[in-house]
């Protein structure tokens, strides 16, 4: 089984080589001429106020949690889909209930307003 992944490893090595070759090549070929203004973060010509390492509120955390819930659902769904032909009809009803529970969850989150981006 594990031998079938050898080509993946080879592809990874070749792809990594290509990726690093491009970076090295551009480092060698490009010229450098730094000036103080060039060395500032680009903010449309204004002098930047403060750095980018500040805390600010993102509605990102809830989306991240939702993602985990639904991605784990996918992990259950994929093996089920693979052997669906051998599971009917019982497997279908079971998955119907599973999807229903998740849909109820989605509706709850929706009604709570977690999907609204302010």
């Amino acid at each position, binding site marked *: 089984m594990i031998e079938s992944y050898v080509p993946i490893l080879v592809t990874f090595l070749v792809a990594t080589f290509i990726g*690093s070759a*491009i970076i090295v090549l551009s480092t060698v070929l490009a010229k450098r001429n730094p000036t103080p203004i060039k060395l500032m973060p680009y903010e449309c010509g204004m002098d930047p106020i403060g750095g980018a390492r500040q805390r600010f509120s993102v509605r990102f955390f809830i989306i991240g949690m939702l993602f985990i819930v639904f991605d784990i659902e996918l992990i259950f769904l*994929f093996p089920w889909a693979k052997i669906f032909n051998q599971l009917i009809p019982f497997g279908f009803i079971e998955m119907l209930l599973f999807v229903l529970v998740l849909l109820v969850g989605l509706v709850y989150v929706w009604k709570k307003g977690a999907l609204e981006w302010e």
Partner: protein
Amino acid sequence: MNEPEQSIILLYLILVGVLLTAAGLIWLERRLLGLWQDRYGPNRAGRFGSLQVAADMIKIFTKEDWIPPFADKPVFVIAPAIIVITTLLSFAVIPFAPEIEIVNLNIGLLFFLAMSSLSVYSVALAGWASNNKYSLLGGLRAAAQMLGYEVFMGLSLAGVIMLAGSFNLREIVEAQRNVWFFIPQFPGFVIFVIAGLAETRRIPFDLPEAENELIAGFHTEYSGMKFGMFFVGEYMGVTLISALIATLFFGGWMGPLLPPLCWMIIKTFIFICGFILVRASLPRLRYDQLLSFGWKLMLPLALLNVVVTGAIILAAS
């Protein structure tokens, strides 16, 4: 195709072919955009601007390769390489013709999904490492967008897996001998195309780099070939998604008369042109529209598609 020398030659041919396609797309996209938007597009370098790619390459390699002193240097340098590596790796599982593929993996489809999830690190890390406010916002947008669109991209494929009974891309193609999956799986096809557009961060889903809000989003601070790598990565992503649409929904290499490889290339090329047409004709979504579109419309639709497909298979047996 068991001899190692042959496999390695094939691997190089496929990877070089993919890179050349991505480079060619730089020219093709601008040419087609020009055609569809009633302007010229590149037409100076060579006949019909065909040497534009060479000119761009020379320009971009010799441009100042700027690493900002305030950036997180190792991450800043690695980030553009990640997108190139993960996208090239995804091509390993795509069967271009019965004998032409790098590896016949029995979990090929899952491998593709894994690699496309990894490619978001490239954008998110680039945005974070640049230490620029616009880049950071672009990177965060990219991450949130991926989280939303990843889920129903996988869900839209569940129907295909149910019909084919396999994750192996070659078996999925073989299963379409009688009818191409875009007929029984039309909703899945539409959802996958939309998720694919979001996955490659192209208009109408190019919020991470929205020029008129975020300058250039996650690659504001990038220049020279590191900037170019994001572009090559994007074009390779377009090629990859097009090749996958052809494989999963349009019978892959199957077709009359012409050799299998020709059919695969023709189908992929048609979908690439489709991607460019979408870019030429649609405006960019607003960010809240993007997220509610993903979570409130596409996700329930994808779930429904799985249930309906299951019911139809149940009724047919």
